[in-house]
């Protein structure tokens, strides 16, 4: 199964990426590509500290969710993940979904964190794409050929809203999962949110 390697990378790097969403403090703007780049660089260092801390998986997940909540463009990511079904969601459902989604992401990717030990991400460049900056990094994991991970940071939000691991788009992947969970619950948004809280 030659595709196994990439599935590992996808699962693995989601963790770092979401941490890297901690690109900018609340309300800040990434005015230049160089700023977006240096922020990704700082975050790489922060993430590495969490990984190197040797904490338990559950406490890493907590650290990670804190970072994710503070810095990633959570409303954008959650709204995209819920997709067209978001239009029929009530305000309370949207809030509950965003909250459940952030916990789900933290658990799902946090579990993969320990596989990161000894690895590193290096920023190799950046470029503006329409209303975002793409920061391209190379991931070096132990015993594996280097591969590309890129991050999209919104120029207006100054936060990470999407990432690509060797071309695999996180927003698309997570929207597909949420759609499947909604189908499994026959379109019942409340039931889907309840199950999401136990998933990952």
């Amino acid at each position: 199964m030659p595709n196994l390697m990439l599935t590992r990378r996808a699962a693995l790097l989601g963790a770092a990426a979401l941490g890297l969403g901690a690109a900018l403090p609340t309300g800040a703007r990434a005015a230049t590509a160089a700023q977006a780049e240096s922020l990704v660089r700082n975050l790489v260092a922060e993430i590495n500290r969490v990984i190197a801390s040797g904490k338990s998986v559950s406490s890493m997940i907590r650290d990670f969710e804190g970072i994710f909540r503070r810095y990633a463009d959570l409303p954008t990511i959650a709204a995209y993940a819920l997709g067209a079904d978001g239009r029929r969601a009530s305000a309370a459902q949207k809030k509950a979904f965003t909250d459940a989604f952030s916990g789900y992401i933290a658990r799902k990717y946090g579990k993969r964190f320990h596989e990161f030990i000894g690895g590193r991400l290096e920023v190799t460049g950046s470029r503006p794409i329409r209303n975002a900056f793409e920061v391209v990094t190379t991931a070096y994991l132990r015993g594996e050929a280097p591969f590309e991970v890129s991050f999209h940071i919104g120029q207006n939000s100054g936060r990470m809203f999407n990432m690509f691991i060797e071309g695999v788009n996180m927003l698309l992947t997570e929207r597909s999962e949420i759609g499947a969970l909604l189908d499994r619950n026959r379109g019942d948004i409340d039931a889907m949110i309840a199950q999401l809280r136990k998933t990952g």
Partner: protein
Amino acid sequence: MRAATAFFPLVLAAALAGCSVPGPGEAPDGVWDPNEAANRRVHEFNLAVDRTLISGAGDATQAVPPEVQQMVVNFADTVSLPKTVVNQVLQVRLGRAARNTLRFAVNATLGLGGLFDLAKDIGLPQDESTFGETLYVWGLPEGGYVVLPVFGPSTERDSVGRAVDLFLNPLDYVLTPVQRRWKTGSVVTAKVIDRARYEGAVDSVLYESIDSYSQLRLIYLQNSRFDLGDTTEADGDAYIDPDAIDTEGF
């Protein structure tokens, strides 16, 4: 490139007949899966094979020292290199074909028959290619998504490529039957070793996803297009505009 097509007119004709092209709106998010119901059944079969055979075999390989496992993986890569070189010649990527020829020469000799990857250390890293990639270079459409029994995710174009690759390794024509069995055995074992090595992450996609079929399909399609440098197959481009998303209330 055009001259190369003359070598395999029959293959090309067969492939063209086999690679379907989605109509407008038939490939949301770049996914064209006209036989989804059948594919899902094969996916379930593959999961059963993985649970009962491959996963267990992988656990067994973990009893083997990592150095020995790496030798198997290196050997499998070395015996596959001639196939890569043939494909890169067909793609008229002569520089890469030459580097891989050198890589093969170094690893097959100084690397003791391919057990050690010395070429990597002198600036000749692994660079694999397949006939599926050759068909891409020749301009064939990707075709629908296909799940192959045991082998897993593929496309119509990639499936044709896999079949042709079976006959494309020059080594097969010079090795004895016994040597060929060692070659094939090493390639299969290397897959099992990889499965075990990345167990946590692979399991998370195959067994912890809400819909493992859709996850694998998205991951496979996007990653193979990325590897090929193909930006034409996806519906539109991959950029998602953050300011176009209605975040009211989230």
